[in-house]
């Protein structure tokens, strides 16, 4: 902790927003620790491994703190931050070569602990899915992630990414086509995902 401030990780979102707006470092810190995983997860899943997701998360929070005074309902801090994350995601897709970020190393954090056997098959499955996502255009991938992983509805996605509803639907179809195409050529993945034999396509 900094500035001798007591831990306040039990503070609710509204309190955090008010205190952070007043320049309290402990509140800013708590906002980071509480919401950075959400922001980073959204960016990491939506954008290919070529991007520097940590830099983008920084970008989101710098903007959040710069614009915190525009937050009307302090209880809506989470959705306020989420909207900035979607906005940065949208801009990153459009300005995709802005910073030429080069961190391409795939980092999947191992969460296994102790001496439990390591499930390399599950990890390999994840790598295969990651590969499919990395092979998609960012705009298609982002729409897929926002819809299926984040659970946003189509209209929310359209507003968040500043594209039309028809475009959202079109991107979603293309994303699914890319996933189906890749799965059709990867029998191992289909088996592991428990897809039926009748549903197999491609050269299987």
């Amino acid at each position, binding site marked *: 902790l900094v500035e001798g401030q007591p831990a306040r990780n039990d503070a609710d979102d509204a309190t955090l927003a008010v205190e952070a707006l007043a320049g309290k470092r402990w509140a800013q810190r708590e906002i980071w620790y509480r919401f950075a995983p959400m922001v980073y997860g959204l960016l990491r899943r939506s954008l290919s491994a070529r991007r520097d*997701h940590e830099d983008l998360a920084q970008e989101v929070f710098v903007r959040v703190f710069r614009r915190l005074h525009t937050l009307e309902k302090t209880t809506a801090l989470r959705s306020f931050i989420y909207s900035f994350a979607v906005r940065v995601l949208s801009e990153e897709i459009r300005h995709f070569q802005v910073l030429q970020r080069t961190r391409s190393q795939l980092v999947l954090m191992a969460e296994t602990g102790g001496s439990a056997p390591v499930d390399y098959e599950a990890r390999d499955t994840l790598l295969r899915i990651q590969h499919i996502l990395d092979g998609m255009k960012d705009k298609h991938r982002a729409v897929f992630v926002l819809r299926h992983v984040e659970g946003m509805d189509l209209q929310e996605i359209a507003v968040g990414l500043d594209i039309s509803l028809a475009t959202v639907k079109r991107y979603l179809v293309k994303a699914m086509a890319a996933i189906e195409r890749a799965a059709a050529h990867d029998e191992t993945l289909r088996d592991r995902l428990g897809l039926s034999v*009748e549903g*197999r396509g491609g050269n299987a």
Partner: protein
Amino acid sequence: MTGKDSQHLADKVAEATRNGIGQMSAAQLDLGWERLANALDQGRGPSLPVVARTPRWRLGVAAAAALALGIVGYRLVSPRQAAPLRYVVEGAQVVADERVVAGPTDPAKLIFTDRSEVRAAPATRLRVASLDARGARVALADGELDVRVEHRPDTSWRFDAGPFSVWVRGTAFNLAYDAQRGRLAVRMLTGVVEVRGPSADRAITLRAGESIELYAGPRSKPVAAAAATGSALAASEAPVAKRIPEPSRPVPHRRVAVVERPEVAVERPSWSRLIARGEFAAVVEDAERLGLDQVLSSATAADLTSLADAARYTRRDDLARRALLGVRWRFAGTAGAKDAAFFLGRLAEAGHGSAALSWYDTYLRESREGPYASEALGRQLVLLARTDRARARQAAKSYLERFPGGSQAELAKSLVE
């Protein structure tokens, strides 16, 4: 694919993505807050303008502006300050004197503020001896490290292991030190390092693709092997060295010869040595005696690769597959992990052809110029010729362009014609 299957696929991919991708580690959170706090202290604004909407016709202009601002922003937050580097440790505790001991089964990772990373294999013991603005001095007591040092003009890192030291300016390499046997092994992935013995006035320079093994021996020992390979280490230092220069056609790292110091009492022969003797079953038995789960989660990359070889040669395909998957996961990005994709393809040929094709695709994507590229493309050709003539023709053209004299050239020509 039916609508039901399509929805099922989307759900499964989404579930795996949600649960497996994008988790933020404690170290990332800590470093992220540190960066953010610095940025807030400096009053840094966003690197891209905060705008509600950007008209599409202005995107080009905005992109150019953002490029300039972005670079400035990046510089501001890039941790290139004159202050000494700091680091955090994932997967292990820092104890007294900055000592880090990785757990018996799990690796640990040190992440430095200049974004350099040191990954310690399970049971590795190391100490961060010192830190300054240009780098760190890390003492490896025993175990194995995968090192990726961020290159900067003034970078200066040093890794000590027993009587040896490795001087780094910006590179990625694997460093292993067996304290009991006094064995140092360095395998270069990118960049250049200098390896030095006890008297630091002589050094061996290693470049990408080169490997070296050194043994700390008695001072009276002659250095026949070192002399034979032109080693620059002094005879008085008496390490026995074998340097394998980068060949014109890459060879797998596993072919690096192991030079043992004869007078050292070795408890048991290394697996690579058993493989060299053709004692494949002994390797598998040894692994089973130690416990396969334990071996798969804690063995070095070299041992896992040896185990995979031994298992393949003794027809223990399932064990070979587990070992190769272990190499790919635990040592992701290394040459061994890339090669493992090829061998997983070979194993998969016994079952589903498409699984083999997928592994060969993976290998060729990761190692387009790798030592098995010709064979991977050739095996794809053979498999596709049986199942998908259209893709086989495409693959044949690609094969002939790259390997006109390859072992599958005749098949490729027949497919193209």
